[in-house]
């Protein structure tokens, strides 16, 4: 083990952890408000990637335009799941388990629909110029600082992820609407008493969650490729960040995500890189065993 490697892995861990935090935000805001185990959060993630690739190829949109299309698609798909899938069951006072099963069904079906429609090939995001000419596949710049290296995309990723974390936390804690979210989460009866429309809150929360999931999908598509089953592992990482960091605490979720990223990166000093997922799942298992409310969560009253 040497210092340089550890330092470099720390940077990698921060990049990874920032992304985990982003995914944690996406699921966290949905889960803490609605208590739905929203596995189908994977769908806006993949939808954003495919919509971006598809729109870039079809309309020769520049990268920014393709991203917008991707995010819009993510929000639309996320809201469709809420309105068509969850609302009918919520109206019926169905159990959380049946909501989860709906989520599961959608999650199983969607990647296969993507495969049927778009084929099985991995989709690379083509970068078109503003004039509609094809530049090339996306490539990022590499910076060297001393013995450390970091790519431009990673820097962008860190900034965007933490900006999103900040925005979500500020939105929930500082805005009028954000307070309705907190109100609904902490005291549903009282929220109804002051006239908060829980459906409206759900719609906004799912829109935000899906938007963030879509951003995640775009990052993966840009750095790597889009493929039908791209989302599930990242969605689960989001879940783990939430439960690891602490339920009901968005900053806790973000920190939990960061910590998981660092853990999985550092673990490769001692273990092979293929052990990283085992480390993440193991960490979750231990946390649930010794501290069920999560690292930064408050114990349930």
């Amino acid at each position, binding site marked *: 083990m040497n210092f340089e490697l550890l330092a470099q892995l720390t940077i990698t861990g921060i990049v990874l952890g920032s992304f985990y935090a982003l995914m944690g935000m996406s699921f966290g805001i949905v889960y803490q408000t609605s208590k739905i185990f929203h596995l189908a959060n994977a769908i806006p993630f993949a939808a954003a990637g495919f919509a971006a690739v598809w729109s870039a190829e079809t309309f020769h949109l520049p990268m920014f335009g393709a991203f917008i299309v991707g995010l819009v698609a993510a929000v639309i798909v996320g809201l469709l799941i809420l309105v068509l899938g969850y609302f009918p069951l919520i109206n019926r006072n169905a159990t959380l388990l049946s909501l*989860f099963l709906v989520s599961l069904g959608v999650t199983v079906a969607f990647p296969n629909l993507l495969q*049927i429609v778009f084929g099985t090939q991995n989709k690379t995001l083509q970068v078109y110029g503003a004039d509609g000419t094809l530049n090339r596949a996306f490539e990022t710049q590499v910076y060297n600082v001393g013995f450390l290296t970091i790519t431009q995309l990673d820097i962008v990723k860190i900034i965007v992820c933490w900006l999103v974390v900040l925005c979500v936390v500020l939105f929930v804690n500082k805005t009028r609407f954000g307070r309705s979210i907190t109100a609904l989460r902490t005291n549903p009866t009282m929220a109804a008493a002051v006239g908060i429309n829980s459906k409206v809150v759900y719609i906004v929360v799912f829109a935000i969650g899906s938007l963030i999931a879509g951003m995640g999908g775009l990052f993966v598509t840009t750095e790597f490729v889009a493929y039908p089953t791209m989302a599930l592992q990242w969605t689960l990482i989001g879940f783990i960040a939430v439960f690891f960091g602490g339920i009901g605490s968005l900053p806790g979720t973000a920190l939990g995500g960061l910590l998981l990223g660092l853990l999985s990166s550092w673990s490769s000093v001692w273990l092979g890189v293929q*052990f990283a997922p085992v480390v*993440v*799942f193991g960490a979750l298992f231990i946390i649930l065993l010794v501290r069920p409310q999560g690292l930064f969560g408050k114990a349930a009253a």
Partner: protein
Amino acid sequence: MAYYGQIAINILILLSLSVSLNLLLGYAGRVSMAQSILFGVGAFTAARLVLPQLTDKYNANVSGVGYGMGWPWWAALLGAIVVTFIAALVISLPAVRQVKGEYLILLTLAFQLGGQQVMTVWEAVTGGPFGVAGIPAIKIGSMSFSTVKADSTVRFAILMLIVTVIVIAVCWGIGESPFGRLLKTLREQESVLPSVGKSPIRPELLTFGITAGIAGGIGALFAFSQGAMTPVNFGLDLSILIVSVVVLGGVGNIFGTIVGAIILGGLDPILSNTVGADAIPWRAVIYGGALVVMMMVRPQGLIPEGAFRRFKKGKTTEEMTPAEAMESLSRVSATHEVGSAPALEVEGLKKSFGGLVAVGGASFTIAEGKITALIGPNGAGKTTIFNMITGTFKPDEGTVKLFGQDITGLSVVDIANKGIARSFQDVRICEQMTVLDNVAVAVPKQAGEGLTNLVFRPLKTRKVERATRERALECLALFGISDKANDLVGELSYGDQKLVAIARLLATDADVLLLDEPTSGVDPANVEGVMQGVRRLRDLGRTVCLVEHSVHFVQQLADRAVFLDQGIVLAEGTVDELINQQELADLYFGS
């Protein structure tokens, strides 16, 4: 023929895995997304146990043709079951720590995904992504059972059919036994079990273990039959498929699972034979979609729990009148020595929550064979005192004595077994269970609640079960509701549901019965019936203590009353004595 045999084998394997999961998901109400990985744990364990002892390291690493312990197949099968059983206990460990619902989903998901990763990485055992090959087939005499050759495939299909029938029989037997009754109660109203003196932890852990053990055993057979496998075989998609089979078929109904497994298991071959390989992605679209549609239109599944309940009707013994029941029940001997001490002595009980004093030193006694009411304004600490007597809360100070014996600080289960049973304000009856089962679960000392008895002493189990049901019927008859014994409790009126809850108390054989608001929420037409029921408890010689807000009813019901305010006893006496004291009225109605 080999192909159809193989299809049958695939469906039977799915069926067995789903039926065993139904025990956990349907009966005990615990979701597990890890059934597939447990299946795999069994398969790899069996493979390593049954493979011959070799030292060819190169082969072991590269192509999965590996070494092992060289056990005979049946020993390896047993080994796989044991190992998987233990693995499941490890997963369910956090479940004991009250990790329920979505925690359990996440935990089992993590175990599934993490476990598969471990399988992929742990080459020494699993052969890595290439998996293990060359696993010897089951041989009985000169006959071999594997899926390699056409005739042996058909043989294995028959073997698998037999195994599946056994698995179904086992799961059915467990599910419909007294043990299964515990599980259903666990699913519907977990807190009821300790209140009738039964630990919920043991059946929960056991069920995790049994479900896994079956999956592990099937995994072993799978390994023997295929001869080769890789970690890919034990992925999340199989776990999801198994959960879907159980949910689509109908949770809590084994026959539903059979139908579900045939439909979903058959989807694959049907699609690939009619449409071709291109249709394969449609499979997941269809069953994912089916899951969504099902939850919308028929959440109870194709064949819901209790679908065959009607056929079992008419099996009950002849109707008993309340008077006959009274006579029969009074023969049940009390568990304590009569006469010496008051039934219940509460001495200086104190409890505060975060600085807020709920009970500030309550002392009172409850006389044997009487109905005593705890009354007082809201926040007087009545329910908190109940909770301390029954062990739900540990008192900060003070003692509780039952017939002179100190029971302060014992667990809920222990206190219930000493002879104090309680009901709850919100009834807590199990709506999806029959009236009879709701009551029968409370009958103490049932042989059928132990799995060893179920397996090794079936005759005794059956005899005890007959007695248990008879006992439960008597308890129901006492309240005149034995004719509804085979109805689902959810279908009863609220008043009858309250009576079921009281009958359940009676069935525990406890001497002291604590009733928390027995008449609240009962519509006026049925209140008299409930009160009648409470009186019958006293007539049987039981000591009854109740919390009731309606003084109107307390007056008609209670022999004595204890007036509490802010956790302190202000007065004791008959109800009439108490309500004639102006200061109590001032406290009750404000001054």
